């Protein structure tokens, strides 16, 4: 499709005043971690391994390196490189990293965006949830218990019971497909279980989350564990992912894991992802062999979280899209 260049297309998508505010908030973030002695790091945007996640489309670039002409992947998050630093003994680290996800453009998404990602060796997922909430409050300029609080926490399955009167883990697939199709006005025939749950989450639950302060969702389906550990739900022994997401004003801001440190399990999940990609007719992604080697050598147990800093800045400044807090949002890049 041809895009007609308009005369104003060269202009920033954020006002200069907003860019000054953005710089101030990023300085706050750095001060927050400096106080806690978390080291700021910078890792490469281009790497040999990409994200195998079925629902992330990685971009790649051809580069000439001492190894010859090779394909390098633009990171969808700095996770792999940061985990290699952890395995090398870095201790707690954070990064404000540029990330790329093909096709993701909208009010809440931009093809290239900034991720605030940090890792806390030795810290539990609960400890990290607490720290994430403190960081969010700091950037919003609000105190906990003030407008942003009090913190409410929900289990994934409780939310489905409350908003849709179904149990996401035990409801038969046919019923989930029917319900998701009805809510979305589309056919979900043949759709996998997770797609139905994702759609219901986006349409029926997410918009209600974080309307009266920060809300945290925990215990995702085991199939949505990505790079998180799994544990058994004490309720009935179902496997769930040791993962949380943080919501404010209907926006998903952060996604945290009790990090998987088992190299064999990680390799198996990469292989599973690529098999699912093949089955879905999607291109396979090169597995990050260096990450697997680092995990095999030993990464300290702990938790980590990725936070969409553009969205947080958007909320802090009362803007209605991420484009309004970025110098040149897609497609004006």
């Amino acid at each position, binding site marked *: *499709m041809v895009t007609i260049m308009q005369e104003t297309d060269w202009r920033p998508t954020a006002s200069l005043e907003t860019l000054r505010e953005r710089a101030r908030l990023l300085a706050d973030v750095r001060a927050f971690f400096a106080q806690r002695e978390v080291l700021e790091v910078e890792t490469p945007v281009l790497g040999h391994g990409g994200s195998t*996640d079925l*629902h*992330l489309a990685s971009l790649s670039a051809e580069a000439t390196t001492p190894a010859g002409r090779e394909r390098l992947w633009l990171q969808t998050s700095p996770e792999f490189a940061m985990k290699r630093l952890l395995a090398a003994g870095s201790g707690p680290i954070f990064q404000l990293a540029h990330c790329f996800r093909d*096709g*993701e*453009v*909208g*009010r*809440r*998404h931009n093809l290239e965006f900034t991720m605030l990602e940090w890792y806390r060796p030795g810290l539990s997922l609960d400890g990290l949830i607490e720290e994430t909430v403190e960081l969010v409050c700091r950037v919003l300029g609000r105190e906990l218990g003030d407008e942003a609080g009090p913190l409410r926490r929900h289990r994934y399955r409780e939310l489905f019971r409350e908003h849709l009167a179904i149990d996401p883990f035990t409801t038969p697939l046919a019923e989930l497909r029917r319900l998701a199709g009805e*809510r*979305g*006005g*589309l056919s979900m025939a043949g759709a996998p279980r*997770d*797609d139905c*749950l*994702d*759609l219901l*989450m*986006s*349409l029926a639950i*997410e918009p209600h989350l974080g309307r009266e302060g920060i809300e945290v969702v925990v215990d*995702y389906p085991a199939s*949505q564990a*990505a790079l998180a550990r799994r544990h058994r739900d004490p309720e009935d022994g179902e496997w769930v992912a040791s993962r949380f*997401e943080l919501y404010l004003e209907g926006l*998903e801001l952060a*996604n945290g894991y009790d990090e998987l440190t088992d190299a064999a399990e990680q390799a198996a999940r990469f292989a599973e992802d690529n098999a699912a990609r093949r089955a879905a007719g999607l291109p396979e992604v090169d597995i990050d062999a260096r990450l697997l080697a680092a995990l095999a050598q030993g990464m300290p147990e702990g938790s980590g979280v990725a936070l969409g800093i553009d969205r947080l800045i958007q909320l802090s400044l009362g803007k209605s899209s991420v484009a309004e807090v970025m110098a040149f949002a897609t497609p004006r890049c």
Partner: protein
Amino acid sequence: MASYSTNEFKGGLKVMLDGDPCAIVENEFVKPGKGQAFNRVKLRNLITGRVWERTFKSGESLEGADVMDLDMEYLYSDGEMWHFMKTDGSFEQYAVEKKALGDTVKWLKEQVAYTVTLWNDNAISVTPPNFIELEVVETDPGLKGDTAQGGSKPATLSSGAVVRVPLFINQGEILKVDTRSGDYVSRA
């Protein structure tokens, strides 16, 4: 026709959905956490005027609709069809059915240009200009000197539309009216 993928959906794009031509009103990309991405799309059915809200998996596509908006002058009605003529000098005429004309029937005036929407060369809707000047054919007598006071009364215009007008307006006057809201704007 070409087909368009969800990432090409933008306001105004004309696509086919369930056999009807539609215009995209709004397209929102939604993606939970790291899950499947969807596009929540609002489309206006160009035949019925109704707005549909549908969800598509990102990357799905819809066929484009052969829809064109053309300027045409209203000529006359034969009672069954309403006849319009292109303003591009071709003198080409189109007959429009009552159903396609919809509410615009009450804003028709000869020699005024309307936007006629064609789908596969058939007229499916007619949009009046935002402002139109019409004569008052019936209203209660005007109240002298009541130009400053509020208050309004109904007036029937030459096209058949009934609008609320200030009390000082008289039969035979030409008024400027906003066709989108049906509001009186001023004396012409």
